[in-house]
């Protein structure tokens, strides 16, 4: 049986990739993808822990479902915002949207 920590390591790797993407990519959409990656990494962890630690209760899976919901919502709003920004400023580069500063 594949030990738990392998799953965790893979999830961590995926998470770090997600983090890197979010922090490094210039394109807002790419950032969103990064976020999706991170959420998936979390899902892996959740399911892994559910499977290894508490298979009886459905908490892990329920949590994952809710993560899906949130991810979907987040993606929807995120993209809507990006499109709105793009429409107004003709640029989706995260750096350009820097008006909210002093």
């Amino acid at each position, binding site marked *: 049986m594949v030990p738990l920590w392998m799953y965790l390591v893979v999830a961590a790797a995926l998470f770090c990739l997600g983090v890197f993407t*979010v*922090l*490094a990519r210039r394109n807002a959409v790419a950032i969103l993808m990064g976020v999706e990656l991170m959420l998936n990494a979390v899902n892996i962890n959740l399911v892994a822990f559910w499977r290894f630690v508490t298979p009886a209760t459905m908490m892990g899976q329920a949590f994952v479902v809710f993560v899906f919901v949130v991810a979907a919502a987040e993606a929807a709003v995120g993209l809507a915002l990006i499109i709105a920004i793009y429409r107004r400023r003709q640029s989706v580069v*995260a*750096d350009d949207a*820097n008006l909210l*500063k002093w």
Partner: protein
Amino acid sequence: MIDWTNANFLPWLIPVPPLIASALIFLLFNRSWFLTTLTALAATILSWGMSLAVLLRALGLAFGDPLGGSAFSSQIAWMDTGTTQFNIGVLVDPLTAVMLFMVPLAISMIMIYSVGYMANDPRRERFFGYMALFAGAMLTLVVADNLLLLFIGWEVMGFCSYSLIGFWFEKESAHKAGVKAFMTTRVADVIMLIGIVYLFAQAGTLNFRDIFFNHEFLAELASTPALIFGGAISAAGLIGVFLVIGTVGKSAQFPLHVWLPDAMEGPTPVSAMIHAAAMVSAGIYMIIRMYPLLAAGADPHHGIYNAPLMLMAYVGAFTALFAAIIAVAQNDIKRILAYSTISQLGFMMAALGIGAYVAAAFHLITHGIFKALLFMSSGAVIHAMEHGEHHAHAEHHGEHAAPIDVQDIRSMGGLRQRIPVTWWAFLAGGMALAGFPLITAGFWSKDEILAEAWHLGVGGEWFGPAVFVFILLAVAAFLTAFYTTRQLAMVFGGQPRTAAAEHAGFVDPEHPTPAAQAISGFMQGPLLVLAVFAVIAGFVGVHPDFPLLGAIFSPYGNPFHNFVTGTLAEEMPKVAFNWLPVLISFLVALGGIWAGWMVYWRRPLAAGQEDPTKVALDRVSPALYTAMQRKFYLDELYNAAFVRPAQWISDVLVAQIVDRGIIDGVLHFIARAATVIGETFKRFNRVVIDGVGDGIPSGIARFGGWFRQLQSGQVQQYLLMALLSALVIGMVVFVRLIGRG
């Protein structure tokens, strides 16, 4: 309430009416001439009445028990000077009583006289105000029971004399004279005040009776060495000297007499008041009052003299002679009298110096009376001359006669027919002054002094000062007689030398009716009264042993002598009657008069003729007469010695150097220093405070600028930072966990 009949209270009231009158006149009545004269006369007569009442009481003639040895006195608390309480009060003792006889009399006569004299003067109300104040001050001085109240009266009189001398202030010489009088008396008064203060410091009180009647104190005072001149003089001596100097200034003795002749600038009643009734006599009165103090530690009768007595004797005698000499050479009618006053006061001072204070008092009284008479009559003469001047001027409107000096005797002459009443009064006064034997008061008082002088000096052992005094006084008496007769001759004898003299005396030249006398009734009344007194006053002090008159007038000893000695604690030894001094005084008086008559009366001067004395003296030395006339250049001397240096001091030293140099310098320096300090502060301020003040905000601004970059608007930057911090915190927590785990 005040018990009018109680003798103790009466003295309080004597000085009050004139003071009130002066206040009223000044404040309320200075517009109406009638009211002014009314209040002034009423006040003086009222005070005269009261003083007469006191006098009679004192003499025991009325109002119950006679004074005897005691004195009325009552005191009230006046000032609370810290530890000691200062009382002032009134004191009536035989000396005061005597003064109360002479002073009010003279003052009232002068008041009445001045009503006539000042009738048509534009500022006559003001004049009466001052006169009333003057009278009040004199009376306060007389009744005062302590030295301070006396000094207050003294000062007020000084002020009144200044204002009265300078009454016609539009005349340059008048107000200069006023200032001169005021300054010289002030010098003396300051020294006197020092004496008073020193006395007060020693005695703790200034009350006459407290000081002069406790002998231990006087002895102790005499023994303690004086503060300043320590060894040479005792405390009492020093105080005495100071007081004497005060009197010298006040009574115009030698060094400080220069103000008296100039005081003639004032209207005649003033000069009368000053030289006769009040001012000068005050000084002598004060010395008599202070006699025990001055004589402390000395017994003139036994040849023991101390500093004050010596001072008085020499100064008095010398002044008498000196003034007499100058008087001979004077041509102004009032100036002659002024110098005669100075010499007469010299007589009194000398008498006091040798211990004959009773004789001095007697002479004081008599002199007061006939000198007042002389001044008022001279006033009348001047009045007449003014009328003459007017008429002469009116008649000879054509050619302008040179305006003559109405007061110059050389422009007078032959006025005995024109103003007969004045002529008789003037004669009486003159003879009294000259000391015409037997019938005039002057003779008796002067004789008394000479007798005393003889007895103490020549008669007995040849004591130093007494002899010196006797000789000088004798010569002075001769000269007095001489210049008096000269004056009489020049003024009244011979023919009128000028047109003014021609018309003098008559209001209306056409019909010389006595009614239209130039001199109004007001003026002539007092003259006659005083003339009478001038004659009879002398009989009060006749020596009992005097051959004929003694028995008549003084059956039980010299009445005046008995009466006055009551004031002093110890009894003054009576002087035995001695023919020699009386004979000398006879000789001197008659000799002087004869001489004067010979020179001036028999061959009256023609208009413009040189004064024979001058001619005589010129033969001796041309400069002598002019020197005498110019008062031995004393004025110039003083002027040079004091006035000019004072002016120099004031305008050069003080103004330029002190004021401008130092004070301004200091101020400028301070100002400059302030600006410099201000400047440095400004620079400091700009550098430090501004530096700090601006530094902080700009620092913050810079920090703000830098800090702003932190919020770059880059979402990813925030995320990175968040992650970093999370990591760090995680690490820390983890390490802690590991640590604990």
